[in-house]
């Protein structure tokens, strides 16, 4: 079994290494063909030709905080739903399986709508 897994995923691991080598190799290859001449003016941060004003690494005000929280909830729920959809081909006729998943989706949907309504008012 282990050797079977190895045989199956060895090309994948090799492919991952090649995908990493491709950009790195390209960037090193350009060194041969190009000529860098850095200067203090050239290395300035680009702000449409003006001298850059202040820092850009600031504490950014991320306005979509509520969306981010719901995103985390749904991200986890999506994995559960995916597993359920993959594994439950035997339980299609079962009312319990359908009812529980419908209840789960309904709770998530109502809660999301409530949070989004709240977000319009609060706007953190």
């Amino acid at each position, binding site marked *: 079994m282990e050797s079977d897994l190895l045989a199956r995923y060895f090309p*994948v691991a090799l*492919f991952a290494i090649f*995908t990493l080598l491709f950009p790195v190799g390209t*960037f090193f290859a*350009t060194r041969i063909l190009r000529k*860098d001449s850095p200067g203090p003016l050239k*290395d300035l*941060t680009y702000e449409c030709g003006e001298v850059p004003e202040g820092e*850009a690494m600031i504490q950014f005000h991320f306005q979509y905080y509520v969306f981010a929280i719901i995103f985390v909830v749904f991200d986890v729920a999506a994995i559960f739903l995916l597993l359920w959809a993959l594994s439950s081909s035997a339980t299609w006729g079962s009312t319990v399986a359908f009812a529980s998943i419908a209840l789960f989706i309904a709770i998530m949907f109502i809660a999301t709508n409530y949070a989004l309504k709240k977000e319009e008012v609060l706007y953190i």
Partner: protein
Amino acid sequence: MTGALIDLFGWSYALASFLLWIGAQLLGLGNWISLQLGAPSPGPLEGMIGFVTGAPLTSLVAIILAINILLLWATAFHLLIVMWIERKMYSRLQDRRGIMLGLGSSEILRNTLGRIPLIGRPFRKASHLGTGFLQTVADGVKLFQKEVITPASADKWMFHAAPVMIAASTLFLFIAIPWSDGFWIMGSRLPNGDVVNPWGVLVILGAFSVAPLSILIAGWASNNKYTLLGGMRAAAQLMSYEIPMVLSIIALVVFAGTLDPFQLVRQQSAPLTFGLGPFGTVQIPWLPNWYIFNPILWIAFVVFFITVIAEAERIPFDIPEAEAELVEGWTTEYSGMRFGIVFGFKWLRAIAGAALIAILFLGGWSGPVFAQVWIPNIASPGNLWPIPILPQEFWFTLKIYAIFVVFVWIGWSVPRVRIDQILNIGWKRLLPLSLLAILLATLARGMGWF
């Protein structure tokens, strides 16, 4: 009869055996020379010849060749064609002809190769009558020579690591995208000839979701206001489309019961069949069983199509780049080949997205294989080798390009959305639609419909 033209592992194994056979012959020659010079029998290189022609090294070389063939096929072939299609097509939508440089535009070529009778014909064409296909190559060559500027205030390590992450994750998408029954890397062949790769679609989705993180890193590390805004927008955009995308795939999985691209395509190559609950089944023999024809799954298809456009950062949803507002978005500070790679690989992501749409909803590489030509097989003499006239690779490529043309068509016809608009589209339109698709699919599946 498979209908696949390319048997990637078979071909690369034959090529690797041939290359290593040449190497073994050279080693044998060296061995023979050293024997003539008085080395003790069986010669110093005898063990090396056995290693070179052995099975482990042949397999390794074959896998490396297969990987390189696949990477070249995706980047050197499809990427160039797709970029050319986009440039030509949006020019047509804007009532102009787009890039027209041809081989005759080069004075040197016109005066040398163009003078040759018969062969020189394409080089004699006037410069404004070409197809412009090599324009993208010229852009690439230009970018290769461009200086790389690292901003003094940037976070150097992260600034240079982000393009590598983006390029690597974009190329990694193609590991799990098969181009036909024979042209694949991730998977394994069962004894009955079917290929399986149980988690293929999941691998593609996982590789897709690395890029927004790298965009955020690039935007932050550049230490520029435009790039910071672009990176933050990429994060917000990820939050809005990722969930509907996965949920619409779940609606598909309820019907298909698998995430295996090979099995999905096998299911879709049968004739269209609907279950009608207690009334039995209806079969439409002249239509394939594509999931887009399913009365419920087309909802999932619409959701998935829109999210793939957002995933590929194409125009209605290209807010992280937004060249009208943010100069060049998160790529503002990149120059030279770093810019070339992060900019050009966007089309590679579009190809991968179109391929995913084709596999999930449009039957993948299945299509009518009208006729096969039988030619003698070089590898095993005495056997005939079927060459399909319209191979699976042709159908898959055709579907990908057709979907890509729709991408371009949508992209150059609608205005760019705002960041709060994409969040509203994602959470207030696409999410309920995909949840509806899941519920309807579960209900229909439980009752035996469709």
